[in-house]
């Protein structure tokens, strides 16, 4: 409290400080609002195309068989517990946001090792029966190695996004990109 008291300005400075503080918090709120920040707490796939460079990922998913059963988060964030889910989401999300804001995204986006690990575990989470059903398995001296050294998409390359994913791979795809944040009444007023 001692430090806070030191920051309290003398009476004749109070008004300008209030105004300056309001400018700062107003700008912060504005940035919060136009970046759709609250949507990042939810699980809607539309959130992921807040950044339009994710359009190829959205479009390919929405044309795949996974569309009816999974959303982005079902595969791309951990589901072992809620803390690790949001920790991973925050870590990944902040990195994405930073790269997007700095315009340093590559032309072709590849998944990082941490993300791979998460997706792989999520494949197993839903498809466990496929890889543990003894009727579907044969054993030989490389079974163990085959099971542990490979990722699902080493073979299932096209699932679900396809193997080509450059930023320009889906021209004119219809994806729910964020619309203009300007409300209609203001638009009309300006016109």
């Amino acid at each position, binding site marked *: 409290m001692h430090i806070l008291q*030191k*920051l309290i*300005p*003398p009476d004749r400075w109070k008004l300008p400080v209030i105004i*300056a503080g309001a*400018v*700062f918090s107003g*700008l*912060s709120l*504005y*940035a919060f609002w*136009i*970046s759709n920040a609250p949507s990042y707490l939810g699980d809607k796939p539309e959130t992921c*195309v807040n*950044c*339009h460079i994710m*359009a*190829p990922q959205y*479009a*390919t998913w*929405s*044309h*795949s*068989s996974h*569309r*009816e059963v999974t959303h982005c988060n079902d595969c791309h964030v951990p589901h072992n517990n809620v803390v690790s889910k949001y920790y991973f989401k925050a870590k990944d999300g902040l990195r994405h946001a930073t790269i*997007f*804001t700095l315009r340093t995204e590559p032309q072709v986006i590849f998944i990082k090792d941490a993300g791979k690990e998460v997706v792989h575990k999520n494949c197993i989470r839903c498809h466990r029966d496929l890889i543990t059903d003894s009727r579907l398995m044969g054993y030989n001296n490389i079974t163990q190695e085959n099971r542990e050294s490979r990722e699902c998409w080493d073979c299932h390359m096209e699932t679900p996004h*396809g193997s*080509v994913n*450059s930023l*320009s*791979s*889906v*021209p*004119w*795809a*219809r*994806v*729910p*990109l*964020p*619309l*203009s*944040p300007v409300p209609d009444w203001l638009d009309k007023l300006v016109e």
Partner: protein
Amino acid sequence: MRSVQEIIKERPWVGWIIFLATTVVVFLLGMLASSIIERRAEAVFAYTPEIKYPETEPRLDVWKDLFPREYDTYLKTADTGFRSRYNGSAQIDMLEESPRMVVLWAGYSFSKDYRQGRGHLHAVEDIRNTLRTGGVPSPQPNTCWTCKSPDVPRVMKETGAAGFYSGTWDTKGKEIINPIGCTDCHDAKTMNLRISRPALVEAFESRGIDISKATHQEMRSLVCAQCHVEYYFNKQKIEGVQYLTFPWQKGMSTEDMESYYDEMEFSDWTHALSRAPMLKAQHPDYEVFLTGVHASRGISCADCHMPFISEGGQKFTDHHLQSPLNNVANSCQVCHREETDRLIQDVYLRQDKIIENRDELEKLLVRCHVEAKTAWDLGATENQMKDILQCIRKAQWRWDFSAAGHGNSFHSPVETGRIITRGITYALEARVLLARVLASLGNNREVPYPDISTKAKAQAFIGLDMKKLNEEKNAFLKNVVPRWLREGQEREEGYLK
């Protein structure tokens, strides 16, 4: 520790530093905000083409520079080379395949000519060629053009829907030049999917649903449902206008639509042999699809008939609208991991089973019409025939409902099987009643089944003068159509280059 105030009093430059630091922070925050804004604005433009043409632009080839892949694949709808067991893109003469249909439609224009429509690119050509539209003046209203061309919304914008529908079919021939194209399904500003035909919007309104609230996935079926549905021409709505209407007010099942028609005492025509007040089912593809398992799993028409394809590192919607049986890899196999042959056999199996019973119903209906005619000839009264004619109407409505939607037997085999079964019970009911009436009129023997083994024999049996109809059509194609094309071309010369 001293207060900030005191520090600044002693050394004013500290105050200036705080001022500058705050300025820098707010400035950077502003930059961050405008960066977010810019990237958001990119989203608006990155996937929205820059289009200079108006929403009424009907010509297909002006769009090809902007959408070369969609355009190229759409041109493939001209192909007529694929034939599956029952359907495909080849033009099948359905009356030749099943001459029984000629008898079923006696007194109605479908008995003259019923060739399966070819791909979308042939839409205008096919409607000009069919004997059903005749010559000048045509026996059909302008309503028949509604689904054929992006020229339709263009003209409707000037005339309104009712204004478009009014008049005989030949009076707007010079306006309708371009086959089904981009603006039939796409908004010209954003290229989003759009509903361009008022009938579907009105049908949704009649059920209290706002179609503008449809999701993108629903729109991927609804753009098709503008045309691939059961419809009729309502003559009561506006005087002198045959107003295109979907009979969905009570619901979309065979029975719901039937009771809608019964209530307004509607019939498409009176049968020439049996004098039954008949209903012609058009093509209830969308309605029947909704009752099937693919619809209940969230699949849209476009998922199978216009799948995503990949070409040279680009992925886009295949605009070659066609039977998925000709493209199993991109349609069925996205979800079903079976061999192509196996999947096609699964489709054929369902079609075979449905068509087996549909053929039986078709034969029963021929007998119904012929026996009813015999009863009239022997002097049956209106009163004796009333219930019989209602049974014939109900039976044939069900037959047509399952036959006219070419995909029905696969889209929803259980529902289609149910509809046909009900149709058979109504047809048998009609024949039981007919047997009694015929017996009471002194005929206790079988009424012979006519020789309708070919289309020509069947058309002669119902008394159609095919020579005259063909001559009329040929003269029309030779003399009138070239004039329409010339006038259309002159009009389009004035369009934006």
